[in-house]
């Protein structure tokens, strides 16, 4: 058994961390948080130059031809640095949707642009406030064009391409849509984490092309979400790890009653519990990475498990990081709130926890695995 990342993968991790240390400091994240810029285009270009976007895309399609384990390593570092770039939208969602659903011709047309980072992709699924269900999707596909409205589209202001789920008489299907079409209107949304962009897209007779079989859209979307869940879970444990480190450092340096606050058991035990949740989540993420990289039958269970435990670990670490910092933790100036915001954004990014828990238990119901 070898249940850890290889030396090369660790080297990659270090390389990404160094690049992010230089180009994605907290000041850079705050720049996006506090301005109207939807993302950090300079950082995006740095990642392009390093070829990071194409990590898990075939070299025949313009990628680096490495695998999902490498992509997981990248995701963890992006999460740790709170990178304000459309990476998850473009790579975890749009690219994965194309890999799952597109035919060869469509892949050849769309993947190279996303692989190089020249083009940015996203997924447009939600139409109403509340959980995504087949019957919440009203967007119509008729006579070769889409009409309707998608809300809460991640990086909707900067994306060039969207994967859209919409219906016609045959049911739900996925479509690839060029967002530069003049029938697309974009409207920025304000969210709990302005370091990431969300917007509403309105389609007025916008052309698109169907991905996969007509009527298979929901099934394909579930596959995409499972794959994205593993990758986002790595982003989450990256953020959780950093929040735990911040809290641990502060607990050593801050004194109260003549001693470091980290010598109070209430604080020590709080930090120990954060560590435990993070370790469990990390192990579940590794399992998810294994399932994703081997396309294992257990992927739906592994993905939901990684997703639920990484969500909990990041929320747990980010909220108690604030608690450890006391009043300082509630200032705009300290970075604690950046992690708190991001953890709560990622917690619902691919659908909320109760939805993922339900998916997890459905997998347990249908298998004998425990």
């Amino acid at each position, binding site marked *: 058994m070898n249940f850890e990342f290889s030396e090369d993968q660790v080297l990659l991790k270090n390389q990404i961390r160094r690049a992010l240390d230089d180009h994605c400091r907290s000041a850079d994240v705050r720049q996006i948080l506090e301005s109207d810029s939807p993302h950090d285009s300079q950082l995006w270009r740095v990642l392009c130059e390093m070829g990071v976007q194409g990590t898990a895309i075939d070299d025949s399609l313009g990628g680096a031809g490495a695998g999902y384990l490498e992509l997981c390593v990248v995701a963890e570092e992006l999460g740790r640095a709170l990178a304000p770039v459309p990476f998850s939208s473009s790579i975890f969602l749009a690219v994965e949707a194309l890999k799952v659903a597109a035919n060869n011709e469509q892949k050849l047309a769309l993947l190279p642009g996303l692989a190089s980072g020249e083009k940015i992709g996203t997924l447009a699924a939600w139409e109403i406030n509340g959980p995504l269900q087949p019957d919440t999707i009203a967007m119509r596909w008729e006579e070769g064009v889409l009409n309707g409205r998608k809300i809460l589209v991640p990086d909707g202001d900067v994306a060039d391409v969207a994967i859209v789920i919409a219906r016609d008489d045959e049911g739900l299907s996925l479509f690839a849509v060029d967002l530069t079409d003049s029938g697309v209107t974009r409207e920025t949304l304000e969210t709990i984490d302005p370091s990431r962009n969300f917007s509403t897209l309105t389609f007025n007779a916008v052309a698109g092309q169907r991905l996969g079989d007509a009527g298979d859209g929901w099934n394909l979307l579930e596959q995409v979400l499972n794959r994205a869940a593993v990758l986002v879970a790595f982003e989450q444990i990256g953020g959780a790890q950093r929040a735990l480190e911040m809290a641990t450092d502060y607990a050593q340096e801050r004194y109260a009653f003549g001693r470091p606050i980290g010598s109070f058991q209430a604080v*020590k035990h709080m930090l*120990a519990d954060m560590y435990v949740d993070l370790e469990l989540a990390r192990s579940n993420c590794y399992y998810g990475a294994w399932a994703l990289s081997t396309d294992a039958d257990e992927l739906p269970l592994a993905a939901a498990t990684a997703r639920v435990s990484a969500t909990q670990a990041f929320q747990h670490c980010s909220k108690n990081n604030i608690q450890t910092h006391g009043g300082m933790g509630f200032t705009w100036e300290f970075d604690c709130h950046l992690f708190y915001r991001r953890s709560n954004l990622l917690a619902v990014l691919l659908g909320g926890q*109760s939805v993922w828990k339900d998916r997890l238990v459905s997998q347990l119901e249908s298998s004998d695995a425990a």
Partner: protein
Amino acid sequence: MNFDDTPQEAEFRSSVRHWIDDNAPKYLLPYLEKASFATMDLGDYNANDESKAWRKKKFDAGWACLSWPQEYGGVGASPIERVIWQQEEGHYAALGGLFTIGEGMCGPTVMSYASEGQKKRYLPKLAAGEEVWCQLFSEPGSGSDLAGLRTKAERDGDDWVINGQKIWTSGAHHSDYGMLITRTDPSVAKHQGLTMFFLSMKSPGVEIRPIKQANGQSGFNEVYFTDVRIPDAQRLGEVGNGWSVSLTTLMNERLSIGGSMPTGFPEMLALVKSLQTGEGLAIKDKAVRDKLADWHCRTSGLKYTSSRMISALSRGETPGPEASIGKLVAGSMMQDMSMVALDLQDLSGILVDPELAELSARFQAMLLRSPATRVEGGTDEILRNIIAERVLGLPGDIRADKGMAFSDIPTGR
């Protein structure tokens, strides 16, 4: 990243599997399958006799104490081979409970500190299960604060004379030998005046009194020492160095990973998949699903944490204090789960008769046993301290007894 055996490991696994298949006491399997949560009931078979017989059989075939050197009764197998053995032994591992403390803690300490002659005399018999060992550490006044112990050892010629009391000694009533930590000098700071010995549990002046546990069973004991004589040759380590000797023992406890900690989750899943509540199967209930998902995540997290540790082992690394999380997570999870399981059974949740209660009353046994998991071998609070201090590097607790001579330290209950 993969879960595959190397060709060498696969070969080892297959030979283990064949041997177990040909030799295991299959007639006990129906009992052993139900033997979770410290309730090993072998019906008309005698548990100690069966445990010893299986152990002896393994020893004769070269499968006992796998990682010990050959000259002391082991086979010098690699840590990863030991893990493979544990995985393959499956339900029969329940027959090993009698020997866990001997193999996992006493044996390694004897190996580090006893004379060559003693190692040759005691270790093979321990490995063969012919002699059972126990650990005489905790006292009425010192559990978590082990170094506060007061059982006295005084030098008398070539012997030491022991007076005092130990408590919570698991298996003392079945044991032939014990590892005993004593105070030899109360005038120095508490960690400095300790000395370790081993002794025959049949020595004159040793009195063993079983304690009836909260769950009605009697696995642990009080052990009284009245003028018990131990030859100086049975001292382990230097006089006054007992604390660091005890750390060897406690560290080895952590190494016994691999056969990952039972959590009771498979039983829970089986229960909610079969139990009818007023509104259909329990697993269809939203509140049940919510909790089930949490417990699955923790169980799965522990399973793959153990896979990560096994990977580290196979690279020759030693697991550190991070191994403490298994018991910390599993203990309170078992307790929570058993309470929910009883609740789902409604009033019939109070039944302990295996014929009448759901799943042969496994959850009732788990309810009554799980408090001990959160105490034995380091309480939840001590484990959190270990994680905070040794993994995260936070400062140690401030000690009221720091630098004091042991005899000046205040005591309470």
